[in-house]
């Protein structure tokens, strides 16, 4: 789609492709590896045409071996390359878990070896992928010191954070939400930009309560905020953008301003990222609180396949509205 000024709207998916392309063009150390990313262009076609442009070594089709993909990325990264590894679906990251938590995460702490790698993980539900193609894997890695995690909610952040991730000297898990791939778009600046890792963003101001969220849920939050506004409730929405390192300051600032806070995520509730956010607030801003800290999150089950089940499972605008009304009235 083209806007009135002639600028091109770019989808979330295209933003990711652009970031990869720009970084590969600028930095010969950057290369990609993963299953079916070459000739096929990736399961989601993010690297379509890349192999023609950069050759079959810089866009490397690997055997079906997630652990080797991540392990090889680590080795190449330590030798000065900037590998970007793709998990075909984030769900399969469980097969590379050990390499991530034991090798990538600990090398710098143990012996000072930087591991500048990016793991792209297409994640999240809403696409009827069922228990093995819908996972939100962030909490596992959130609890693993040595890894960074980013989770953009917009095309702008998708591009800017991926470029920052590639330039970072640490292992970064890049969570790209499959539901957003083709559903959101925006005009991006023509000039180069990077979104620094570690900075949350207040995406909507409000003074009655705060909602802390990230990923696809940012859009659910904004939709809910719009409705609440009409009911006279001004909900502030904070998009974390980066999960590790977490921008606690921005969270606490918002809480201090509104005195009431909710956390929203698509991942299951128990032990999710929301628990940590709630705990930090309860620890560091207790005095500012004027009500319980409410979490809206998926129930503690695998992601079910059948549309009515999945619809029930994934947090919805209504869930946010209900919780927000309750909290506002507290």
């Amino acid at each position, binding site marked *: 789609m083209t806007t009135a000024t002639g600028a091109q709207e770019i989808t979330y998916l295209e933003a990711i492709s652009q970031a990869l392309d720009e970084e590969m063009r600028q930095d010969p150390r950057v290369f990609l590896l993963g299953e079916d990313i070459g000739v096929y262009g990736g399961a989601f076609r993010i690297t379509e045409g890349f192999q023609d442009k950069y050759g079959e070594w810089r866009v490397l089709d690997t055997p079906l071996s997630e652990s080797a993909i991540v392990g090889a990325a680590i080795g190449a990264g330590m030798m000065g390359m900037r590998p970007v590894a793709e998990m075909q679906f984030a769900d399969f990251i469980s097969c590379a878990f050990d390499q991530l938590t034991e090798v990538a995460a600990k090398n710098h702490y143990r012996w000072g070896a930087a591991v500048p790698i990016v793991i792209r993980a297409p994640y999240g539900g809403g696409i*009827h992928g069922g228990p*093995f193609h819908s996972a939100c894997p962030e909490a596992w890695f959130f609890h693993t010191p040595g890894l960074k995690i980013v989770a953009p909610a917009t095309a702008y952040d998708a591009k800017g954070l991926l470029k920052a991730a590639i330039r970072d000297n640490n292992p970064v898990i890049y969570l790209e939400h499959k539901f957003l791939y083709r559903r959101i778009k925006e005009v991006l600046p023509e000039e180069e930009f990077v979104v620094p890792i570690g900075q949350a963003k207040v995406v909507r101001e409000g003074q009655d309560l705060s909602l802390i969220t990230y990923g696809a849920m940012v859009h659910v939050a904004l939709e809910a905020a719009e409705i609440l506004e009409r009911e006279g409730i001004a909900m502030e929405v904070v998009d974390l953008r980066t999960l590790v390192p977490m921008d606690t300051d921005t969270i606490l600032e918002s809480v201090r301003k509104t005195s009431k806070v909710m956390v929203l995520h698509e991942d299951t509730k128990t032990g999710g990222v929301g628990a940590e956010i709630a705990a930090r607030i309860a620890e560091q801003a207790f005095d500012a609180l004027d009500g319980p800290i409410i979490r809206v999150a998926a129930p503690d089950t695998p992601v079910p396949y*059948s*549309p*009515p089940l999945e619809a*029930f499972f994934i947090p919805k605008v209504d869930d946010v509205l209900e919780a927000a009304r309750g909290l506002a009235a507290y």
Partner: protein
Amino acid sequence: MNTPIIERDQQGVGAVENGSGAKASLHGTKEDRMKIAKADYLQMYYYLRLTRALEDRVTVLYRQGRIAGGAYTSHGMEAISVGYAYALHADDVIAPYHRDMGAYLVRGITPGEVLAQYLGKRTGPTKGKDGNVHLGDLRRGIIAFVSHLADNLPVAAGAALAFKLRGETRVVVTNTGDGGTSRGDFHEALNFASVRKLPVVFFCNNNQYAYSTPLHLQMAIRDVAERAKAYAMPSEIVDGNDVGAVYLAAQRAIERARRGEGPTFIECKTMRMHGHSEHDSAKYVPRALLEEWKKKDPILKAERILREWGYATDSDFQAVQQRVIKEIDTALEFAERSPLPEGPEALDGVYADSEREGLA
């Protein structure tokens, strides 16, 4: 890098010596005829047809946008899962992979259940919790497929271990794709099974591609069967499009396992005739290759042999085809009539109760 196995395959796998030292099975020989009774061959033929008709219907439903998730078929590879499943006893167990629809059907999963599963209905074996070919039912001796490829190989070894521990003569058959053999769990499972001589048979559906990845980018060996050497495991290469050959190879390996002599690895040479899933046009596969393999279609091959052996005529084939189409029609009606689950059912069943469920 090695050239893909394709060229040689085109000459008909079963008929040639192969370089790996693995036994090569002949197909359609007189010797085979003595080993496969007419009733059995016809029954396998019926299952080939049923599988084909069911998956063709799935493809149609997918194109009509009536399947919410993905759809995977075994089109052109039906002989593998029909053949191995047919060789099993009722109390044996299978741990199939995603192109084994024939095995589900042979084990008693009905086409109605399969379509209900695809449509997310409560009457599917997973009650809507899971989709497509993730069908499991311990009462029918079926361990449900897990997307994570090769994950069920150690599980299959463990099921076989249970039989060995209890002194039972039951056997487990599992299957994986050529791509799946690159995963660590493949290695750990085959190694463990071999060290402990567990009653498990490892099939490999070598359809020459893993999604878009051709065999020579998946492994440096020409025959997947070479992998078995790392475990001192006997292996066999079989024409995966010949249901009789698969059945007999499965039978040999299953009986070997039943006798306590340990696991066998069976590579079935075949070709993936559709895209990886129904959304994939598989442009990366040379058309000529598909044309070539179309001629080796397992149903055509079965019909040729049935005719040659005097087991059946064209009118028998037509009767079977009419029968399966009717079965699929009925099945679809059942699936369509079945209710969707209600949202809150999403919360059910994360944990088992204290009462043991399923079959031991």
